């Protein structure tokens, strides 16, 4: 049996997180020394039967108490700031990261690459690139845990969460579900395979031909009849979708919402929830008609319209 003490380190973030680990280990060692050395000495010296000076001392009790209240607090604050900075780094994906979608389901991980490649319980990523995972669940809460990257994020049904990595070592590493999700929770495991960019490109090519996510999304958009109202010269008045993604959308109730993945998803499933300013809600709900994978395809398509300008609207 091996006796590993440190998990594999496959990213810069992992390295930085480990510095915190070492910092905290040093702090713990220091505190243990400060407490246990005097304690053991006192236990030995003042044990019953051992002659020692036991006359009570008048110590400046209040000053001592204040000192050992304030000093630990200040030290703790340093670690608080250190840990928080790392947290912000981990939690906020870089803006231009490539996106891969993850769908958790009892008890497997389904992965969608933007090029259309799909895999289960395996995630291939290129080394040296920021990779953002856009994640959701079909059923219960799961958690996407990549120990070699020191990252983890709960995958929650009904919303999108993100996680990002930038691998700096080629290799195969663990992928675990780390939020208890039912009977085969411990079998909801897989691998993340870090490849050189060239290998990644050829791996993608091997998985073709498949329509890309945007293409699948576009055909769904037509099949489901979305294009009938939201596109071009339709008669029914619906908000155009070109150039919407990522922008603020003013709503009927005078609030403004950011058009992110969650907003698009909610608008498809619960159209009455947030109505775009100046419109009435004539859209049926697509709950039960679109599964999580299709939803992500639709979002990819609507996202691809981000750069287009809205088509001229035809008002009846």
């Amino acid at each position: 049996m091996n006796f590993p003490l440190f998990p594999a380190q496959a990213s810069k973030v992992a390295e930085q997180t480990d510095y915190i680990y070492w910092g905290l280990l040093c702090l713990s060692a220091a505190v243990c020394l400060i407490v246990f050395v005097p304690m053991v000495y006192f236990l030995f010296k003042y044990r019953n039967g051992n002659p020692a000076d036991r006359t009570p001392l008048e110590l400046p009790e209040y000053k001592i108490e204040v000192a050992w209240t304030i000093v630990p607090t200040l030290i703790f604050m340093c670690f608080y700031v250190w840990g928080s900075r790392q947290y912000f780094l981990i939690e906020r994906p870089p803006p231009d990261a490539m996106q891969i979608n993850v769908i958790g389901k009892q008890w497997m991980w389904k992965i969608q690459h933007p090029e259309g490649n799909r895999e289960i319980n395996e995630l291939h990523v290129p080394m040296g690139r920021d990779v953002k995972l856009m994640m959701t669940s079909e059923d219960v809460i799961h958690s996407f845990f990549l120990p070699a990257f020191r990252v983890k994020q709960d995958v929650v049904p009904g919303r999108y969460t993100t996680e990002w990595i930038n691998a700096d070592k080629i290799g195969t590493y663990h992928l675990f579900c780390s939020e208890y999700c039912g009977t085969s929770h411990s079998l909801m495991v897989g691998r993340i395979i870090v490849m050189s960019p060239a290998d990644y490109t050829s791996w993608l090519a091997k998985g073709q031909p498949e329509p890309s996510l945007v293409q699948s999304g576009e055909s769904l958009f037509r099949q489901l009849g979305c294009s009938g109202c939201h596109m071009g010269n339709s008669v029914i008045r619906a908000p155009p979708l070109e150039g919407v993604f990522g922008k603020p959308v003013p709503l009927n109730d005078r609030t403004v919402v950011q058009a992110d993945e969650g907003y698009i998803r909610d608008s498809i499933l619960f159209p009455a929830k947030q109505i775009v300013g100046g419109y009435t809600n004539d859209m049926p709900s697509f709950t039960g008609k679109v599964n999580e994978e299709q939803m992500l395809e639709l979002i990819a398509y609507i996202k691809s319209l981000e750069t287009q300008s809205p088509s001229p609207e035809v008002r009846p």
Partner: protein
Amino acid sequence: MKTTMPQTVTPEIPNPPQRLLSYFEDGGQTLGSWLLTTDHKRIGILYLYSILVFFVIAAIAAAMMRMELLTPAGDMVTSQTYNKLFTMHGTLMVWFFLIPSIPSVLGNFLVPLMLGARDLAFPKLNLLSWYLFNLGGLLALYAVAFGGVDTGWTFYEPYSSAFSNSHVVTMIAGVFVAGFSSILTGLNFIVSIHKLRAPGLTWFKLPLFLWSTYATSIILVLATPVLAMTLVLVATEKIWGLGIFDPKLGGDPVLFQHLFWFYSHPAVYVMILPGMGVISELITCFSRKPIFGYHFVAFSSVAIALIGFFVWGHHMFVSSQSVYAGLVFSLLSYLVAVPSAIKVFNWTMTLYRGRIHFDTPMLYALAFIGLFMVGGLTGLFLAALGFDVHVHGTYFVVAHFHYIMVGGMVTAFLGGLHYWWPKITGRLYPENLGRLAALIIFIGFNVTFLPQFVVGYLGMPRRYHAYAPEFQIFNVMSSAGASILGIGYLLPLIYLIWSLKNGKKAPPNPWKATGLEWQTPSPPPKQNFAQTPIVTQKPYQYSPEIEEELIHG
């Protein structure tokens, strides 16, 4: 020779009455005399029996899990069974052993004695608490015996309402009912400490055990109702399909986590504060010194209870809650660590220039400080946001909270049980066996849980029935340690029962301690004191200069 000052003066009684019957003799030994008693001491004993049953069942579940985890493959029981085992272990240990352990057993027995009172403020309510506790326990056992529950003790949504086919509602009902027992006990303690203090016993003359019991009771009264409401909402969703937490019904599963941890994090302090109170009593008595920094130790308990209400979100750093919320919860989590550190420093300082006796309770107290330090320091790891992302939901967390709850609370419970055993039963326990057991428990505990920190840092998630092969060595160590720990826990069970008949008779104050509970016979008479004591001194007026033989030497 000068001796340690007792905390009281006993008023001169003109015609000393005949020896009062002890609470064992007074009222007889019929079943009815126990089941219908309103004597806080007898109710304490009843609780001891109840929690022992739950402890043994939950420990058997742990033993089976440790056996399963000897090998990476899930080969001894099925996954479904394994999931039911850890759910059973968690729910029974948390709600039916740890939460009532020190408060309901030692607290029930000691609070009135330490106050110089005849009983708690509401003796009948106290008996009702015990019945509610057992009713809740029976429901939980019914759920376990007739199908089991597979949600984990946290009942996370939407798994527990929409996906689990096990006996979730019965288990929830059990926890719900037992919660009322917590609330009533907490209420009883608060009122008793306010209203029933003996003449002269001002707040700052209270033993620190009462300060920590008071802080604990505040949590029990304020937090438990939130758990009750949350569980009702889960049951409502499960039975009637009312959408509260399930996103398919328009609910929010993360809301459940907020509500659950709003109770369960303060509850973590219910599972450590009373232990801290016990340790303050033991350290002072066995180092023959007044506690260093009485006010700071007392107020740190209250500070922990109050700040503890605002740190629940540190269970949710990767749950998708806002990163800014994470910032606040991390800050408060660091702040709540400060009062715990203050306690440890004060205990250490109390030893300085003391006269230290290494009797069994003191060994447990020292073990507590060591184990609690590890638990507390690893809490700093988990409070560090960026590091928590990695170890959240792994064995690192499992090791951390076992260091606090088992290394801390159970060790303090055993220390307290040995310390007050002569008072409770009127018998002495065998000292050498006691010391041996304390040592075995300390070693066994560390062998069990230290490797879990490593395997958690390596990335082994908790609640895994099967795991990656490179984690095996740590699991084997852990399982080996658990068997040592099992022997360690079995020993006191055997010799304490043995001592009930065969132990030497205990004098009223075998440890020459100063607390009020020692100024009355062992075991105490039904009304506790022949005459209401009048308190004249601060607590812990020990004199280390005086050489005194304690009962065990």
